[in-house]
């Protein structure tokens, strides 16, 4: 649940979601759920030539399992806090 809470804290921020099929989508994080399905608003595709049909899309819902990574604004993330929290959760999962 850690990353679910983590992403919830970033709602309203601009992120870039990179999918496993190499598509990258830039947008504002609207919401996220426990499976890390992501809803973005005001999106723009970083490679519109490859996906011209997405040019007119403003909002989208991305399946969590197809996300390779999410680029976040560096000044919005306390990496030290995140690392500590991740370690704690990893330990708790082993109990």
């Amino acid at each position, binding site marked *: 649940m850690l990353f679910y809470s983590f992403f919830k804290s970033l709602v309203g921020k601009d992120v870039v979601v990179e*999918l*496993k*099929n*190499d*598509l990258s*989508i830039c947008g504002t994080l609207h919401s996220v*759920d426990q*499976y890390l*399905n992501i*809803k973005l608003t005001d*999106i723009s595709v970083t490679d519109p030539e490859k*996906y011209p*049909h*997405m*040019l*007119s*899309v*403003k*909002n*989208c*819902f*991305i*399946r*969590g*399992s*197809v996300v390779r990574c999410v680029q976040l604004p560096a000044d919005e993330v306390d990496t030290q806090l995140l690392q*500590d929290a991740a*370690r*704690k959760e*990893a*330990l708790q*999962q*082993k*109990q």
Partner: protein
Amino acid sequence: MSFLKSFPPPGPAEGLLRQQPDTEAVLNGKGLGTGTLYIAESRLSWLDGSGLGFSLEYPTISLHALSRDRSDCLGEHLYVMVNAKFEEESKESVADEEEEDSDDDVEPITEFRFVPSDKSALEAMFTAMCECQALHPDPEDEDSDDYDGEEYDVEAHDGMEVDTTPTVAGQFEDADVDH
């Protein structure tokens, strides 16, 4: 279209959330005709007037979105990106198909667009799809809570103090977490 099949329309047993008639389906830019889109909890289906159609499994749907550009030749529509290949009538010769096999290394992507005649239904269609997607999380989750079932872990931690503060610098550095 070789991939179009005849099947009964989904009903309550399949968890039908929304049925949208008079909806055109477009596959990778090619129109398939007008039919009915069925947004059910089990799968997303579309059937044309003759009872032929196709179904999409939610785990294969990478993303779905609303396209609001009215200047688009299709008008406002529901965009669905699928991580699968759909056989169309091949215009290419067999030799060309051998070349396409090398594309198997790249994840296949198929773009569907569903264009309802009733544009006011788009928001509800999008929302219904969001709800259904949430019902089909990936079963193979690396961070699953399966650890609860492993007895040996419970035994090992009996009486062991779990101190989250590393007493040895870099104590946790070795843990390799594969994402």
